[in-house]
Structure formats: C-alpha cells, structure tokens
C-alpha cells in the first residue's frame, strides 16, 4: 500500500513537471525558435532570413536577384501610392486614419485591447475605409495588395517588434491560439505548418526548397510568379492549408489573425523588406 502511494505521488510530481515544462512564455518560444534556425543554418546571417528560401538556396537566390533587378511588384507600389493619396468620397484620406503613415507596417499586427482581438494592417485599412463610407477591400486578391505594397515599401527597414501586452490575458491567449494553430496537424496529409517550415526547412519538396519560418512575415505582400500578381499573407496561409488538403479558414478571420500574431512575433528583431518577389 505504501509502495503504491509512493508510486502515485511520484507520478503526480512527474506530471506536474511535464505540465510546467510545457508552459513556456512567448520570450522563451522566440529564443528556442530562433536558436533552432541558427543551429540548423549556421552560415546564414540572422538578418538574411528575411529573404526566405533564398537565404539557404544559392541557385534560387541568383534567379531571385535577377528578378529583383526589375521588381514585378513595382506597378503595385505606384498604384498603392495613388490609392493612399486619393481622397475618399467624403474628402478624407487614409492619412486621416493613420497620421504616421504611410510607413506603418512595423506597427502591425498589434493587440487591440478595446476590441479584444489581433488587429492586422489589412483589417485596419478596411476599418478606415468603412469609417469613411467606402466599400471594404477583399482580403486576398485585388486592390488591397496595391496599398499594402506601398505601405510595406515605405516601411522597409522597420524592425519587427510585435508586443504581447502583459496586462491583458486575452492577448496572450491569442498568441497561444496562433502557436497552437502553427504546431497542429491538419488536413488529409496530416501536416502542421511546423512540419514543412521548421522541421524540414531547407529540404526539397518536389522542386522547391522549403523556406524557413523565421522571416516569413517580413516580405508580405508578395508577388508570386505562380499567382502572376501580388497577394496577401492570408492568401498564402490559405494556399498552405490547401496544400496539406485542409479546408482553409477565412482570410482575416480569428484563426489566421492569431496565426499572424504568433508567426510575426517569431520574427521579432528582423527588418521588414516587403513587398517581396517569390516563385
């Protein structure tokens, strides 16, 4: 009986230890995440991870550098600038909503305490439009990519610095939900985001090099040759989910916003370099 009691006590202590060991802070997650890539790709400068797969694929990088000589996203930047400057029907402009603009990409995603949700840049732009009596833009394709391209271009060099306010437990919960999404298996192929972009980063999938997740958020929106146009981060999330044969979630819905919150936090310290060009 005594032995049984001792064994049970030991089990309880062990379980408690495991639970405590799994409860990590965002700072600890960030350190472990970035350390993983530094160990995996010791010859890559941390700041170079903003270039995605091209930071680890020299042949792909040569092609990409050639593409960047005449950036395919350039017309979108010009179009976005015109959108930024053109007054709404009520005479106001985006500048009235974002007085610090247009270089505001570094402020997003951010925790909106009042609304109790993660506020992303596309969502904030549409909030601005709606507040001024304009129709909201679509979140994956179309004109939103032009204005995002312009804002991202103007924000180049800003340092990713997502904050998770400690005075609001809901912010931490949103981060944790995003983290859970990232590490959860989904779809018929039973893959998580981490399987491709963490565990197998640098490996070849068919003809493509799997890009590291570190720096994934810095270069959006992105011109993808596959799309033949610029697309948003949530469009890319949708594509990734489809590739593992999972039904994608709604762009700018809670799932993807929280995922963006977590994923961008993981790139804290890296400079923004959007818009980007990818295959």
């Amino acid at each position, binding site marked *: 009986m005594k032995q049984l009691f001792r064994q049970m006590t030991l089990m309880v202590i062990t379980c408690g230890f495991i639970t405590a060991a*799994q409860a990590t802070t965002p700072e600890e997650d960030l350190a472990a*995440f970035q350390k993983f890539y530094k160990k995996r790709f010791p010859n890559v400068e941390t700041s170079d991870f903003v270039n995605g797969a091209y930071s680890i694929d020299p042949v792909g990088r040569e092609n990409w550098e050639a593409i960047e000589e005449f950036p395919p996203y350039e017309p979108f930047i010009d179009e976005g600038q015109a959108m930024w400057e053109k007054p709404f029907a009520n005479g106001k402009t985006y500048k009235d909503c974002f007085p610090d603009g247009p270089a505001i990409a570094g402020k997003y995603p951010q925790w909106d305490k009042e609304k109790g949700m993660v506020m992303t840049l596309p969502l904030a732009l549409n909030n601005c439009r709606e507040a001024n009596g304009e129709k909201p833009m679509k979140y994956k394709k179309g004109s939103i990519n032009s204005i995002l391209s312009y804002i991202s271009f103007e924000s180049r060099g800003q340092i990713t610095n997502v904050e998770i306010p400690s005075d609001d437990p809901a912010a931490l919960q949103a981060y944790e939900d995003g983290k859970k999404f990232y590490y*959860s*298996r989904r779809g*018929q192929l*039973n893959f998580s985001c981490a399987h491709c972009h963490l565990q197998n980063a640098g490996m070849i999938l068919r003809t493509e090099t799997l890009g590291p997740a570190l720096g994934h958020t810095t270069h959006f929106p992105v011109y993808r040759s596959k799309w033949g146009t610029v697309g948003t981060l949530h469009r890319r999330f949708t594509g990734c989910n489809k590739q593992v044969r999972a*039904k994608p979630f709604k762009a700018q819905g809670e799932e993807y916003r929280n995922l963006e919150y977590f994923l961008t936090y993981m790139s804290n310290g890296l400079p923004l370099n959007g818009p980007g060009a990818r295959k």
Partner: protein
Amino acid sequence: MQKKLLLIFSLLIGILCSGIATTSLAEDTSAAKVQKLIEAADAARKQAAGVGGEWRDTGKMIKKAKTLMEKGDLVKAAKLANKAAKQGHLGYEQAMSQKTLTMPSYLHYE
C-alpha cells in the same frame, strides 16, 4: 496444365463474384438510401468543421455525390458519400487528437 486450369477457373469465379457484388450494390442503392448517406456525410463534415478539422475535399465530394445522385448514378454517388463521411470522421478525430498542444522535441528550451 492442371495449375493453368485452376488459375483460369479462379479468375472466372472472381469476375463472376465481382459482377454479382456490383449488381447487388446497385439493387441495394435506392435514391432514398443514397440521400441518407449524403446526409450522414454532411453531418460528419459539419462535425469536423465545428472543431476546425474539415478537410479540403470533403465538401466537394458531397456536392459531387449530390450531382451524381440527381443524374441517377446511385452506385457512384453512394461510394463518394461514404468516402466523404470517412473524411469527416477522420478530420474530426484529427482535430481532437491535436487539442493539447505538443511542442516538437527538436525545439530546445533552456
């Protein structure tokens, strides 16, 4: 020679059996039954969707099964509905299995 005969005989029996099976499936598959299979598949899909575990093609399969049923191809419709139902169940199970976050062992916390 005997082996050859045995092989041919087995093949013939096999073909005959599969023919009977297909015929009986077709006979057993009434439009009402297929409708029920489709409904069951949709319920399974919704259950998976409720926990964020719906798979990409389940909804499309159900839609296709409905079209096939309307065209009178009940056997194909039934097969597809069953496949979709299986996907729905698996998607739900998968999402439930991921309820507790497990961090990968290759991430080292210090």
